[in-house]
């Protein structure tokens, strides 16, 4: 199996794991970490695809995404801290107020 294919498989596995984590956990921080895992899966895929097609776009894009992910993480964690201060918990159930 070529290295690129392995990378793609690992990326897909990461994504699937992250998705499961996101859907099954109630803790906001863990859910956030799960999304990060999904994110890394996609990143890995991008790099792999770039490698497969012999172009650098994938890598360049991955670099961009890294930066964005960092920014996003800072923002999201800040929000979570804020939410925790409001309710004293980081469980999603406490915030299910937006129902129709």
């Amino acid at each position, binding site marked *: 199996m070529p290295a690129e294919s392995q990378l793609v498989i690992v990326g897909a596995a990461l994504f699937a794991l992250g*998705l499961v984590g*996101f*859907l*099954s956990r*109630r803790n906001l921080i863990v*859910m956030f970490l799960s999304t990060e895992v999904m994110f890394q899966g996609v990143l890995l895929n991008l790099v792999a695809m770039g490698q497969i097609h012999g172009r650098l776009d994938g890598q360049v894009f991955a670099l961009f995404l890294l930066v964005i992910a960092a920014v996003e993480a800072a923002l999201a964690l800040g929000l979570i801290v804020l939410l925790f201060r409001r309710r004293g918990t980081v469980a*999603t*159930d406490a*915030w*299910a*107020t*937006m*129902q*129709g």
Partner: protein
Amino acid sequence: MSETAVAACSILILLCPLLGAGLIGALGRPVLRGRSHAPAIIGVGIGVIASFVILHMVRAAGGAETAHVVLYQWFVTGAPSAWFNVEVLVDALTAVMLVTVTFVSLLVIIYSRDYMREHGQPARGYERFFAFLALFVFSMCALVLAGNFLLLYLGWELVGLCSYLLIGFYYQRPAAAAAAKKAFLVNRIGDFGFGLGILLIYLTIGHLDYETVFGAVQAAMANHGHGDVGAVAAALNTDLATAVGVMQGIQNRVAIIALLLFCGAIGKSAQLPLYVWLPDAMEGPSPVSALIHAATMVTAGVYMVARCGVIFTASPAVMTVVALVGAVTALYAATIALTQHDMKRILAYSTVSQLGYMFLGLGVYAAGSAIFHLFTHAFFKALLFLSAGSVMHAMGGIIDLRHFGGLRRIMPWTCRFCVIGALALAGFPLFSGFWSKDEIIHHAFQSNVWLGLIGLVTAALTAFYTGRMIFRAFWGLERVPEGVHAHESGRWILVPLGVLAAGAVLAGYIHVGGFIEPVTEPFALAAAQAHHTIPVHETLLHAAALGPGGADVATHAAEGHNYGLMAASGLIVILALGLAYLAYVIWPGLPSMVTAIWPRAYRLLFHKYYVDEIYDAGVVQPLRGSGRLCFGIDEYVVDGLIWLVTAVPRALAYALRGLQSGAMQGYGVTMATGLAIIVLVVLLSGW
């Protein structure tokens, strides 16, 4: 006439009253106060002088010349025919009107100086009053001087505005405020037709200035209504092909145009069925009534018809309408005046009636006589209203004849002047009203016996109600309202009255009709033409029937002197006055006996045929109802429909809101499932 001189005089006539009004408006309250009458008197005074200068110039030119001066370009749009100028047209008719308007107005303003004071102190709104008066004079002069239909309309509306402001001068009195609004609105109804007529003129001829329009209409109606294409083309300065079309347009529409214009005249000159505002207009101060009823405003309609003689005489049917409206209004208003108790109201109905005479004159192609009557009427009606004002002033604001009487000794001068005015109004021989009214009745007889008879009957009624008013106010037992210290008015009031009284006697000896003959020529021409010939034998018959002199009179008849008729109408007037003297001085019980015999007729007349009530129930209330209906439609139908439209998304949202659980993972599952389905579909379909 030199154009420069005419222009200079016109500008003076227009600007001086306007500047006076502006000056009072700007400085009246802070600076002038009790002297606010000065700018108005000076401004209008200059206007009087300039008017006389114009009259002199027209006379010097033999009365036949016309000066047309463009002052500046007002606005332009599209083709050159739609360039509207501020322009003046001066001819004999204009000159006569100007002199009448400015001269009578000046006297009224001088009179107001004392009238608008209470115990020597200027009354509240003193400055406002004079500013409006000056503005009124300006508006009327603008109307008379206008050189095209649009400016005529401007003056027409401004006069309406001034009447609104002045009738509503005592704005805290609900009656005054309502009367002001009524005056403006009823006038507007007339102006509706007037404006449409102007637009139709433009649509048909493509121009609005008098000279072009009248020239074109005259040419189009030449040759017994068959038209003269060459003359039309020359008048319009176009090629023959265009002229043919315009000519046909004129021939087809001239009657409708005339009728629409006449609507305006009906409104402004208070004829049936739009006369209702004028009797209420006496809610304003007496000088205003004098101004509105005598010199300005109501004469505008008569002036306009005389000015547009070319258009009106083009259609005999319209002339018949004019004559009928005039005759019926004259009779109708006179009957109402018989029963009223309010001195000013009697005078107001007499104005409506006299204006009816003028339209009767116009309708029977005697425009000269109509303007002549307008001229004499201005003097004696202003005199009567100002005298009534003098009485009212002395009676502490009460003008109801039931509350006072026998004022002959208390107010000797007012009484004398008032009697002179009343005799002129009644048409007592040798007073001014006699001459002018007689001419109209004479021409009416020439046209149709019935019209003439209506004229005579109205003359009798006029004499009777005038006599009734005079005898009740000045003769009989001396009575004044309680708590009122009755006194003769001061010099500022009596001097204008004296001048007007002189006018009321002498104005009949000025041959106005002859002077303006060049202007009223269309009437004469039309009368002479086929569609208006009175068989000679008929005239002879009248003459024979009406008095001694027989055939001799008939030959004079054509020239406007019918001695038999004069004698007859003089006799009728004297008899009617005598009857009034009998009923109100010698045998005061008579009137109540008469009313007891015909109580219904009396009530009908006393309530003015219930016309105000009919209008309210037939026009005003339905309109208001439809207004409520419109608003209701807005609130319920239109908004209801829109609510229905918005109900669709609302219902959808209601159906779908259940999907919104608020739990984040729920959304995640949905998303993941959807993604999985898409991936599966893509994979299975083998893309």
